[in-house]
């Protein structure tokens, strides 16, 4: 089938994940050019015969071959041009000197093209503004801060910064350096920008909440004990019961509110703890509801006892 080799070239580029440069397919290109030559010669022969012998039936095959020639040329030019675009992107990413493994995949003419491109880009950058020019391959990202924390990924030796101090860049050492000095080295892979730790704001609020929560739970337990131990059978103490019940409700509300916040805040606490707390609040609210009558108060003592146990275990898990 005609044009198969040409499509294979395109497919090869398409297969490689974007940006990377595969090796130059010299063989594939040669085969396509040979096919084009063969098609052209056949066409030449047919055209002269059609003219000489007046054979109009050869014209469709001439047209077909011409279309195949055009398609082959289009595929070849697309292959070469796409490679050029990838090489151009390498200049912007790696700088003037390409790593050896990338250069190995480039043909001699591509290396020449790259050298020429580098030169025109450099002369353009030098001519900006009329004085010493501006390096537009720097400053690729908007500046967020003046100094950044960087970690050294490989030994780079000594490095001088603006005020004259010399820093030794040893592997795994961390430094706090001016951003504009580090950009080039970050792109080459010598340094690595370390994001400041403590991105999890949620973990901070838990220790603060913990004493509050412990307080509240203790308060609840005390209230429940006051509520049920001595006054269980004394109906005249219903007034006191009501007061204690109100206090219990308020306490539960204060306990539930930060836990609601916890849930909306999302990923910060471990899931088990949140579920436990959730169960705790549910059980407490059930108890308060069931405290409305004395009989139910009696029956829910055991439940309350269970609640207190779970509260205690939750406390021990918190700490």
């Amino acid at each position: 089938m005609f044009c198969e080799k040409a499509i294979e070239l395109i497919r090869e580029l398409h297969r490689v994940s974007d940006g990377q440069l595969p090796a130059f397919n010299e063989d594939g290109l040669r085969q396509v050019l040979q096919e084009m030559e063969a098609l052209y010669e056949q066409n030449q022969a047919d055209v002269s015969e059609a003219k000489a012998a007046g054979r109009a039936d050869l014209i469709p095959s001439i047209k077909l071959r011409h279309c195949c020639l055009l398609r082959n040329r289009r595929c070849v030019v697309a292959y070469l041009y796409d490679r050029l675009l990838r090489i151009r992107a390498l200049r912007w990413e790696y700088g003037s000197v390409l790593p050896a493994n990338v250069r190995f995949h480039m043909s001699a003419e591509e290396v020449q093209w790259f050298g020429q491109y580098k030169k025109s880009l450099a002369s353009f950058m030098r001519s900006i503004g009329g004085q010493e020019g501006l390096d537009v391959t720097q400053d690729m990202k908007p500046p967020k801060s003046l100094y950044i924390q960087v970690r050294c990924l490989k030994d780079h030796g000594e490095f001088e910064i603006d005020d004259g101090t010399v820093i030794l860049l040893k592997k795994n050492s961390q430094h706090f350096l001016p951003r504009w000095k580090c950009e080039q080295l970050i792109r080459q892979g010598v340094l690595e920008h370390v994001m400041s730790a403590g991105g999890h704001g949620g973990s901070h609020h838990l220790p603060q909440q913990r004493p509050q929560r412990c307080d509240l739970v203790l308060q609840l337990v005390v209230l429940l004990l006051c509520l049920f131990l001595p006054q269980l059978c004394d109906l005249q103490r219903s007034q006191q019961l009501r007061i204690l019940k109100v206090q219990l409700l308020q306490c539960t509300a204060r306990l539930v509110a930060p836990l609601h916040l916890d849930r909306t805040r999302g990923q910060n606490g471990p899931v088990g703890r949140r579920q436990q707390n959730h169960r705790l609040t549910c059980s407490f609210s059930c108890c308060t509801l069931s405290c409305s009558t004395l009989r139910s108060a009696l029956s829910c003592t055991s439940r309350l006892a269970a609640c207190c146990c779970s509260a205690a275990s939750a406390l021990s898990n918190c700490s």
Partner: protein
Amino acid sequence: MSDALSEDGSDINQDDSQEDIMTPAELIAKLEQAWLNEKFSPELLENKSEVVECVMEQLTHMEANLQRVKKGDAKAGFHRMEIDRIRFVLSSYLRSRLQKIEKYFPHVLEREKSLVEGQPSLLSPEEFAFAKEYYANTETYLKAVALKRMPPNLQAVDMLKAVPEPCLDSFVFLRVKERQENILIEPETDEQRDFVVDLEEGSQHLMRYRIVAPLVSSGAVELI
């Protein structure tokens, strides 16, 4: 604006004596607007080389001032951040222009050639040189590697057809700075009819770039 810039206000007034006198704040605002317009428009816009030159001068002034400031002064940090930010905006502006030049190089050169006398040029002299070199470089490469080994009637490749054109029908967001009346919106499909809108000052719209292209170059709308 930072102190370092305001100290240099007098310098820039002397330099721009032929043009309108601009404060540094106005200059940076112009740069930012040119940057955003260039970023969001699908085709290459008019070059603003005078803005670029003035901003470069400002940057060198500010750097010189910073050298004079004594070490450990807290203000030096702020001035340096200001310099970094301005340099980023300028670099980003020039980069987006370069990318468009490289992407549409035959069309850009064609537009530059077909400009009428008196129209502002699309490319600065340096950009024009860069575009020509890029064209020549790519053409030589293609000829050397493939085209000269092809049959004689196929050796010429029309770059204008081979390289895709910028899509002027892509939609852009814009904010209106000066009130415009009777903007004709052409139909996109055969079923639609063309209609006319008025653009109020301060309003924001989403339109095809082709309709507002002349307004962007005159400064009546800005792309956001």
